[in-house]
């Protein structure tokens, strides 16, 4: 047995910047970053209901802030983030469910994704309708 030669020395490679290694990982990071839009909007909405509870003057202050160019720009980025989130959510949804069968055939993942989108369109229209026509 040769005790002078190092026969093993397992080399562990660094994980730094792993997400830059492959476009697949970059898309994953973009998907995860969409949570910033969800967080940001939740905070904006939280302030909205807080100001609502503080009276008309406070609410109008919040509304005025919503009308500022900065806020509009911010909400456009929120909107982009929400769309990225919705798109990636429905794309990954089939992976989170057991295989479904309908009429003896396996339901493909794309069907589940498209169903998710369809429900979103309906939900968005209903939300819009309430915002436009609901009377106190």
């Amino acid at each position, binding site marked *: 047995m040769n005790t002078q030669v190092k026969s093993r020395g397992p080399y562990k490679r660094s*994980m*730094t910047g792993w*997400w830059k290694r492959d476009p697949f990982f970059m898309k994953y*990071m973009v998907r*995860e*970053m969409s*949570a*910033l*839009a*969800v*967080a940001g*909007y*939740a*905070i*904006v*909405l*939280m302030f*909205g*209901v*807080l100001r*609502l*509870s503080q009276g*008309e003057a406070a*609410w*109008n202050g919040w*509304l005025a802030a*919503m*009308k500022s160019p900065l*806020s*509009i720009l*911010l*909400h*456009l980025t*929120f*909107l982009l983030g*929400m*769309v990225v*989130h*919705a798109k990636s*959510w*429905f794309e990954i949804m089939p992976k989170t469910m057991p295989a479904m069968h309908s009429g003896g055939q396996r339901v493909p993942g794309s069907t589940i994704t498209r169903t*998710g989108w369809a*429900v*979103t369109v309906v*939900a*968005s229209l209903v*939300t*819009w309708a309430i*915002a*436009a026509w*609901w009377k*106190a």
Partner: protein
Amino acid sequence: MNRITPSNAPIFWLLFGAGGVLSALFGSALVFITGIAGPLGIGLSADALSYQRVLGFAQNFIGKGFLLACIAFFAWHAAHRLLCTVHDFGIHKTVFVKSIFYGCAMVITLVAASSLLSVGF
């Protein structure tokens, strides 16, 4: 054999999932309505977001519940996901780090809940 560490992840994962579904279904529309169309008066009447109208919505049992659900679940969803993201960037999910993210979600939830309760029914 493989290490086995008990996990409380299911609690936060369910909150994450609920928030993910809610924000996927309603997030885009809500951002557009409250943040773009409403303030700018595009496609909505000028008083769509007036104090009286929004107050009435928030005092309505369903409206109140919807607003609270959106704010709270969006916050818990984002908290969990951003926690996982900082972990992806190399920050370990220590109790301290978890407390910051989930703590923020809790604060957002409590502020929203107390605000929505105090506007009454």
